[in-house]
């Protein structure tokens, strides 16, 4: 009897499990089918607005938590302005944005790109970093989706594909920095940089450029893990290197960092004797208000001003387009744009103009049209002529340095490095 009861008990549990499994599978099939049906439903009334989707794959969390939202808003502004202009012109076309936060990681970028593909997106602003671009490139190519990264700058990603880049290659900035260091009579440089595609790329380019003729300078690199939350060891190594250089007027530090890591490094450096006695230079990513009070501590603001933190940013010399962009951005979001917001604005504008000029929402057509549109486009970050790889062909760089007028901190622009001549001209 026990054996029969055992069989009955086991059999009952097994049959309950089978029923549960069957119900679960049925629910999944019904939901998937319903979703497929909903996805094929026509949107809007017949003859009504034609809606084109534009993906905005810009990270707003992790290392991009501070600057990411400002860059995203640059793209939003472009889309809103374009929609308003199309509406005013009586066009039936509108662009609908879909923003996906990639989290700044390569697989996060791939997941977000997959999500955009499932929504039927054919044009994408983003992703931001070169690591993310490297990850989504095969997806963009295989599915003929045109993407423009507003801030990827790694030279190793220059290939002919569906991925375009509107920020100039780091090789230009390395040349500009070498010229600036020479101009300021700096012969020994300690570089502290993020150990990622961006930081290592720029640091290596500067080292190879500045140690070669005609500069023949000395460069020491200190790399740090960009995911680390404290940088005591690396700042200690940098201090040792600067001390070894003599910490004199011919010695300087170049910092290549983002906000949280940069703030921590500057905070540690201001308490270090050799590091607080030499001149400081910064990559274009240092030109962010996050390094000034009230976001940063007052001591950090004072430090960057006292050390005359100086750097470049690839931007157009101020012109009416730039002024209008800044005014519109301020009006829309009640804050000033961060440097790369100019690029995300231009990336979105270029994509939408290419769709309109191609007359079709089709990846290959947009890809073919984009370089043509770029040849005559001048936006918030300057002209956008692409090279054979779909990358920003070249750029002039504005020189900025940190200033304090007794009330406000600012990045004051004081000169321009011209890529065509390699000359540095002060305003």
């Amino acid at each position: 009897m026990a054996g029969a009861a055992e069989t009955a008990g086991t059999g009952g549990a097994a049959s309950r499990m089978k029923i549960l499994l069957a119900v679960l599978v049925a629910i999944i099939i019904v939901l998937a089918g319903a979703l497929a049906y909903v996805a094929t439903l026509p949107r809007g009334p017949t003859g009504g607005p034609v809606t084109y989707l534009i993906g905005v794959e810009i990270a707003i969390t992790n290392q991009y938590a501070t600057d990411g939202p400002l860059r995203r808003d640059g793209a939003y502004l472009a889309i809103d302005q374009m929609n308003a202009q199309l509406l005013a012109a009586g066009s039936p076309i509108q662009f609908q944005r879909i923003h996906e936060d990639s989290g700044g990681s390569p697989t996060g970028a791939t997941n977000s790109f997959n999500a955009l593909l499932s929504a039927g997106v054919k044009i994408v602003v983003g992703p931001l970093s070169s690591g993310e671009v490297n990850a989504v490139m095969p997806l963009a190519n295989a599915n003929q989706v045109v993407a423009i990264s507003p801030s990827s700058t790694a030279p190793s990603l220059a290939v002919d594909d569906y991925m375009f880049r509107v920020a100039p290659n780091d090789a230009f900035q390395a040349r500009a920095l070498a010229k600036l260091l020479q101009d300021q009579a700096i012969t020994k440089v300690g570089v502290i940089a993020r150990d990622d595609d961006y930081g290592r790329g720029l640091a290596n380019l500067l080292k190879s450029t500045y140690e070669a003729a005609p500069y023949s300078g000395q460069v020491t690199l200190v790399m740090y893990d960009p995911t680390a939350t404290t940088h005591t060891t690396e700042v200690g190594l940098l201090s040792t290197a600067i001390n070894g250089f003599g910490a004199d007027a011919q010695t300087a530090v170049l910092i290549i960092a983002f906000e949280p890591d940069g703030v921590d490094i500057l905070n540690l450096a201001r308490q270090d004797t050799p590091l607080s006695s030499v001149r400081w230079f910064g990559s274009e990513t240092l030109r962010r208000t996050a390094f000034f009070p009230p976001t940063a501590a007052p001591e950090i603001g004072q430090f960057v001003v006292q050390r005359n933190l100086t750097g470049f940013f690839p931007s157009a010399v101020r012109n009416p387009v730039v002024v209008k962009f800044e005014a519109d951005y301020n009006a829309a979001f009640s804050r000033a744009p961060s440097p790369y917001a100019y690029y995300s604005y231009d990336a979105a504008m270029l994509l939408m103009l290419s769709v309109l000029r191609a007359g079709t929402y089709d990846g290959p057509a947009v890809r073919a049209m984009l370089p043509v549109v770029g040849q005559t486009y001048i936006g918030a970050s300057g002209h956008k002529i692409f090279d054979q790889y779909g990358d920003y062909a070249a750029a002039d760089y504005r020189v900025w340095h940190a200033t304090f007028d007794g009330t406000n901190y600012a990045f004051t622009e004081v000169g321009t490095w011209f890529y065509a001549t390699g000359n540095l001209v002060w305003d």
Partner: protein
Amino acid sequence: MADLLFLYTSIATLFGIYAILALSFNLEYGYAGQPNLGKVFFFSIGAYVAGILVAHGTAALTGYTGDLFTAQAANARLLYAAANPGTILSFFIGALALAGLVGAGFGVLASYPALRLRGDFLAIVLIAVGEVGRVFVRVYTPLAGGNIGIGGVPSPFVFLGDRGARVAFSVLVLLLALGTFLFASRLSNSPLGRLLKSVRDDELASNVFGKRTPWVKAQILAVGSGIAAIAGVLWAFWFQTVAADDFIPQLTFLVVAMVLLGGAGNHRGVLVGAITMTVLDHVTRPSFYAILGFEANLAFDINYLRYILIGLMIILILMFRPGGLLPEKPVRTPALDIARALRRPAPAADTLQAERTQPP
């Protein structure tokens, strides 16, 4: 127009990979009580085995001597795969086998700290092991491209075309997840499974009964790590890229959340945890709202809402069902089944009659 193939294949593949990973963690933690918070390290071993095998293997076969880690080299690998699908399929199968072995080997090594440390201290040591591994690969460029990583890891089903390859790969991952579930269930209900629970519940008592608990720990960490490495191979071939910055401790914590959500010590619960987290991640994305026809232009960024919702759900479930959605059950043994049968109320007369008429 929406293309749901991407949504469905993404959900299926990520669920499969996370399920395999979570099942491996459940064996170690849910059954053996070894909190392997270095799980992402063993997972990354599989991904790197796949990436290195493909990158260096294709270079050796084609005589390529340039930088293996540029976008040009990645594109060249994808083109090579399209022309030589058999080779890539061989690399994939080889990577699965090799990663399982290498992962298991590192799992045995990881059992050494487990001999002296327990609980929180073991967890901290294994997190550190994972970070050391990640930093080493990220700094030592010749092995796997350093911080840039390895791009252009082609789909093993490249001969089916892009869409066909996605579907085939998703199905394969689901089958492997099913296989892992059956294997883990069988192992858990075996004498070894009961021994694992005894080590978890009272290691001293297990020792007193003559069980070699260090060997048991080594065994389960080898099995769990080998399975995690296989999941890593699938990850590399799905994302077609292997980057050090993807293998951070948060990935381990995501797997831990799946196990706790579903129910530690219950493999079915782990599957429920994995599918819940994966589906939630997909259906709370703005792209999903766009598929449904909603334009999510709200006053706040809806991406933040996604993180809040997922976090809130985990908190609520852990508050009201601390054992998870499907809490742990006793190990199924013949003795348990008999005991349960004896506790049942006496069967009705007609049932007894039916039993009597059955042949012995």
